[in-house]
């Protein structure tokens, strides 16, 4: 259970990683990562492809177990806890490749996200009142990402951009305390990206946001702090401005310099 509440509410760590590593056979995908994210923070995790960002996400949310180190969320050590436990604590995420339910409708998908956290997962009967309430919430979440017009469509028949919208609606619908988005803008059109940015900026300040994003435009506009990863390790941490000014970041991320200078 939670310890005595810390004096300063906003300094309450949402996420605390210590020495987290993850190995796949011979490959060390994540290596000795320490990370602290506090309540309400907007954190971007950047880095070139293959830097270990997604693996780190998977370790945080519990899809993968950590090979080394400890994972703490909301002040509780969850290193050995399964993904579902962490989800119920209020940790929601999206996936790079949407991982949606192709055979379900949009509404059902969002509905599942709510039921997963609210309880009643195993209920084999329909309780009309409850059902109405959850459906209502699901529709509302769909409205927030402007996908209301597709509620009854099978997710499998939607476009790529719509998949992203559904994924975010699912993450939001559960009313999480922390939201982890894995490349939400990937594959989106310019207009869609604009909508996404606005959505993220308008997010409730109570929700902690952790974001992997290649679109620096979005990442640096939304984030208050940035963690730069490379080769499984954290290279730099800082504010967006510090990151912008950092030469290492540019060398790494833009590959600036090969053969030109």
């Amino acid at each position, binding site marked *: 259970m939670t310890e005595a509440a810390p004096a300063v509410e906003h300094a309450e760590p949402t996420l605390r990683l210590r020495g987290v590593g993850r190995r796949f056979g011979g490959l060390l995908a994540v290596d000795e990562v320490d990370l602290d994210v506090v309540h309400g923070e907007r954190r971007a995790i950047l880095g070139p492809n293959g830097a270990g960002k997604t693996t780190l996400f998977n370790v945080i*949310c*519990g*899809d993968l177990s950590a090979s080394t180190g400890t994972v703490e969320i909301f002040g509780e050590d969850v290193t050995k806890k*399964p*993904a*579902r436990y*962490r*989800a*119920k604590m209020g940790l*929601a*995420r999206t*996936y*790079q*490749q949407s*991982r*949606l*339910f*192709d*055979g*379900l409708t949009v509404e*059902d*998908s969002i*509905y*599942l*996200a709510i*039921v*997963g*956290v609210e309880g*009643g*997962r*195993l*209920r*084999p*009967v*329909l309780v009309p009142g409850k059902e109405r309430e959850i459906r209502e919430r699901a529709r509302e979440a769909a409205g927030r990402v402007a996908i209301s017009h597709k509620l009854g469509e099978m997710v*499998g*028949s939607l476009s790529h951009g719509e998949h992203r919208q559904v994924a975010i609606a*699912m993450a939001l619908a*559960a009313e999480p305390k922390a939201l982890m988005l894995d490349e939400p803008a*990937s*594959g989106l059109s310019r207009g869609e990206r604009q909508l996404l940015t606005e959505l993220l900026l308008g997010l409730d300040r109570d929700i902690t946001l952790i974001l992997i994003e290649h679109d620096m435009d979005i990442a640096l506009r939304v984030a208050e702090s940035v963690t730069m990863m490379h080769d499984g390790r954290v290279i730099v941490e800082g504010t967006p401005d510090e990151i912008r000014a950092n030469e290492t970041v540019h060398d790494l991320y833009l590959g600036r310099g090969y053969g030109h200078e």
Partner: protein
Amino acid sequence: MTVDRTKLATERVIGVAALVVAVLAPTLFSAFWLNSILTQALILGIGAASLIFLSAYGGMISLAQTGLMGIAGYALANMVTQRVPGGETKGLLLGWDPTVGLVAAILLTVGIGLVFGAVASRSYGIYFLMLTLTYTVIAFLFVGSVTLIGGFSPVAGVDTYTPGFIGDIVTDRERLYYITLITAVFVYLLVRYLVRTPFGVSLQGIRDEPVRMASLGYNVALHRTIAFGIGAFIAALAGVLSAWWFGQLSPTTMGLDATIQMLVIAVIGGLRRIEGAWLGAIAFLMINNEITNRIPSSGLPVIGGTFNTVIGFIFLAIVIVSPDGLMGLWDRMWDALRRRGGPPHAEPEGGEPAAVASS
């Protein structure tokens, strides 16, 4: 999407018509047809429904259903039959009250199903298929080897000890038919209802993306286990009805052939929609019965062999032409109509889900 609405309406009309025919069946069909084809089709359909329930909504193709049916039948047979002169010779002959036996047999089957399901809950795809096949083989060998509860000789007389509310089904086969029909409708409605409940929707989510479901807060293994338990319950109903219909039980009712037959029925019907269970059962039985009666008893001309060869070829043709079975064919027909009406609407490929690599 008017095509979809037309399709739904058409299906409703067909469904109601089928139900009307089913209710009037005793007046429409000969006694043999009623008893052997229709009753059996309903029973096999319930069995196949338990398979299709798991496959269509849970993504689990289970070959354990035949075994679970057999377990229910054997449990019932051992519990209710009595030792009387000129009567049964095999089994425990416990002579329990048939109602108690009925409930106990179903509960036992569900319990075993839950254990089976718990063990299998972490297996997927072809491994799940193989593991559940071994459940059936274990059940087969168990009743065959433990002569106390049966052995390879038939345990008989199950149909003479039915609960009072079931009544005499030995001489009154119409009664058995209606009981089976009611059960089938119940199972159909149960499944249709279940898949709309939180549990059912979750199950479908797990079918599509188990990893995603885990990170949404679901205990994937538990859900799959319980789904397997529900599958076992439906299979138990089929098993009990089958025991009453056959009157006897022997291990081969859950042998490899019977297991494959159940899969064949489900595949002919179509593994993606629950209605396919009964469609597959009736189609299979009709084909089987007709061919058996029509092939000359001296064997096939030219190539030799019996009707099994013909059945093999027909099954081959169905799998090749329509891997989603008859229901799949039906759906594709409507898809074709829709495509003609609206803009090109891509259908999901029948094969490997395309691995969309991101760049």
